[in-house]
């Protein structure tokens, strides 16, 4: 593998609007039962001040993808650029991958009774376009990056946030800029 593509999510900029999530659905006209990308609100008690803090997660295109490891029919593959692809034609809908992924990213489509997931819009990338989620992000909180040591040495780049699964399990290709909290004048203190 020559490189590893992934996402950089900036929680300082993200307002949790779900534009990315819906732009993904708009791009693929995906079934209501699946959410290739999902915005999560983090628990307010995990931060110094109770604010609304969000992360947006598609497939993390892990360096050690559990989905690929457990799939009994070889529906998963990893491209040269690190993108993990799921081939729905091979999928038998056994849901092993949905149980194995710590991030709940392979999604079971109840209409076609098979799994599907974020493919990092590789067709758009191959055409030189941004993934639908990245292109749609109004506060520009989401970008596609090459996951490498250089990125991890940058100040403020985090491998995980409170409430996320241990990154050691699958080595996910996602990095975060942590939330920045302002001053709050509250009435409950």
């Amino acid at each position, binding site marked *: 593998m020559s490189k590893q593509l992934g996402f950089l999510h900036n929680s*300082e*900029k993200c*307002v*949790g*609007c*779900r*534009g990315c*999530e*819906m*732009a993904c*659905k*708009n*791009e*693929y*006209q995906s*079934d*209501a*039962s699946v*959410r290739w990308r999902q915005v999560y609100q983090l628990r*307010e008690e995990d931060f110094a001040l*109770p*604010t*609304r*803090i*969000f992360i947006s997660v598609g497939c993390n295109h892990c360096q050690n993808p559990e989905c690929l490891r457990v799939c009994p029919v070889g529906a998963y593959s990893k491209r040269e650029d690190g993108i993990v692809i799921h081939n729905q034609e091979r999928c038998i809908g056994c849901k092993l991958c949905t149980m194995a992924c710590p991030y709940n990213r392979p999604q079971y489509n109840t209409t076609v009774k098979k799994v599907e997931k974020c493919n990092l819009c590789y067709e758009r990338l191959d055409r030189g376009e941004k993934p639908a989620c990245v*292109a*749609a*992000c*109004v*506060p*520009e909180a989401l970008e596609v990056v090459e996951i490498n040591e250089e990125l991890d040495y940058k100040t403020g780049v985090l491998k995980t946030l409170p409430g996320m699964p241990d990154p050691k399990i699958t080595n996910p290709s996602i990095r975060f800029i942590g939330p920045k909290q*302002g*001053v*709050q*004048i*509250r*009435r*409950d203190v």
Partner: protein
Amino acid sequence: MKITRRQFIGTAAAVTASAGLFSFNMLGKADKAVADTESKVQIFRNVCPRNCYDTCAQISYVEDGVLKKVEGDPKSTYTNGKLFLKGYNYTRRVYSPDRIKYPMKQVPRGSGNWERISWDEAMNTIAEKILELKKRYGSTLPICMNKYSGNFGITHYGIEGTMSSIGYTTRAVGTPCWPAGIDAQTYDFGTIINNDPEDLANSNYIILWGSNCAWTGIHSLPFIMKARERGAKIVAIDPILTSTASKADLYIQIKPSTDGALALGMAKYILDNDLVDWEYATANSIGFEEWVDYVRKNITLDWAAEKTGVPKDVIIQLAREYATTKPAAIWVGYGMQRHTNGGQNVRIIDALGVMTGNVGKSGGGVNYAHLETWGFNYHAMSMPVPEGSVGVPGPNGTYSDRAVNMNNFAAEVQALTDPPVKMLWIAARNPVSQDPDTNDIIKMFNSMELVVTVDSFFNKTVELSDIVLPATTHFEDWDVMASYWHYWVGINQRAIEPMYEAKSDVEIAMALSKAMNALEPGSCTYPTEGDPEEWVAKEFNDGIHSMLGISSYKDLLDGPRKAKISPVAWADGQFRTPSGKIEIRCERAAQNGLPALPVWVEELKTSAQYPIRFMTPHPQHGIHSQFQNLDWMMAANPEPVVEIHPELAAQYGIGEGDMVRIYNELGEVKIKAHLTRTTSPDVIVSYEAWYKDSPFNVNYTVKAIPADMGKLATGMDGIAFHDNFVAIEKA
């Protein structure tokens, strides 16, 4: 981007639609083998017509007559090629299996016993009823229209035109949304004008005062963030720690309805510390010295701190920063004016902007809204009444329509006796979901002889109607849209053929006219023929052309245009008040029974019996009762919650996920609890919406209490939606 003009498509969509075989499966990516042969993606320009700050410019992608996806139009520098989450859901609206497909009748009303009828039967039934009522009462006043913001496209004023074309009718007048703030700025400046929101990027200090733009106007955020990158400080003042407030450098949790007290406290500090821009204020306003005198004599920082719950040192910091970091912009959100003193609070904030010289400046302003780009012909609306029509008698033998207050609709309609209201015509509106006092609204509906609703979904209002007429979506229609916030205007093309038997409001008016004139020639003046594109063309005039720098509406097919007006409101110092100055002392306000000066007016307080304030602001996943019912939204946000502070929840033994009964003397609502410190212990919050297959409706406990202002500019006062006091218990 070159726009391909629509080809007439009589195949896929139309055939499958009429056969009832349409499904979401058609929307998936086309099989490659098929895609490469004949299908060709066509691109159209659309504009989201919802009641929203952003009025997004859209590009729609159509393949074989099917709308495949919708994106933002990069030609608008405001929308910038991106939509909000709602805009990405449009294929689910257009092709929802829940859409109303044909005219239908429900016998009896409210039974759910719907039966498909033809357009002819629907129009004849309605026409016969109108003519029968006209004969029985001697006028068409028993027919009452309630229309507002379900579709803000200019041709949708054809709904008002429908009514005019049959005679003088009873009309719901006013707006539930923003009138108190409109009047406040009309008293002060002569009308509402905000700086171009793209100008927020030039600000050095931004106060988001009651605005949750992360949910309600997200395309303004990049300009705010651009200002912040340059070093501007972002302050959010809100009773609720919203998604927007969570991003602020300084968040101030103010006691609801006390915004004016905070502004007065700031004004006092600014005066005492000689931070006033006397030159601007005295040159541009009248009554400023008198107001300064009031502030000096009556306001103390201790009082402001006590009133607002904001500590004195924070008021001092805010006042000093706002007065000295220029230019400083204030965005006045609509939530803060939905109180019995809401308009007055906006007037006080206006005065704060004037005293610091921030009005009329790039990067400044007290920004509320504008209507500068709305100067269309309103051709679809402007229909003459039929000859010999009788209405409410006026001077010199003239007649007029009969106005009822949209904001007290249930009570006022039921109070009318001479003649009583017997028929409702509802379009672009969902009063059973959105009006205050839901129980009274239901009672009023049940007193009608005929209720006709034009809509796309079987919502709460349709459930209480006799006849429902299927409305087109904006992709199925020609139209033109302006925004009340940004300065762009865009054309909306018909991207796909109308689905099923849906018609636009203008087409419905034409069909009704045909039916009425067949039964009684001359009884309706609405044209009976007309091409949808021509109807749009007739809305344009020289004023709009020159404002947009176009010679014809067709120029908008190349992309939306931004109005060629100053991006800075009031930069020329020509105010539209009677005096031509900013009226800090406003005689018109005094004549309307309001304080002449921006002085403090006491807020409405909770009672011992109903000690909790229940706020019901705008939702994230919809606009009022639109969008939340769609399948993608239901998957993302399946059920409503009520946000309760853990301290309050503990008092009532309420835990996370417990059902809570929220009630007062008007009604009750049961909602699942979400414990959060984003609200304060005396305020609970649930976001208004219409969820599919859910009885949820926040308006059962909301009284039709008027806000203090609204009459001057909109005909009726607003509603104090956020002065909603309740008791709670674990359900």
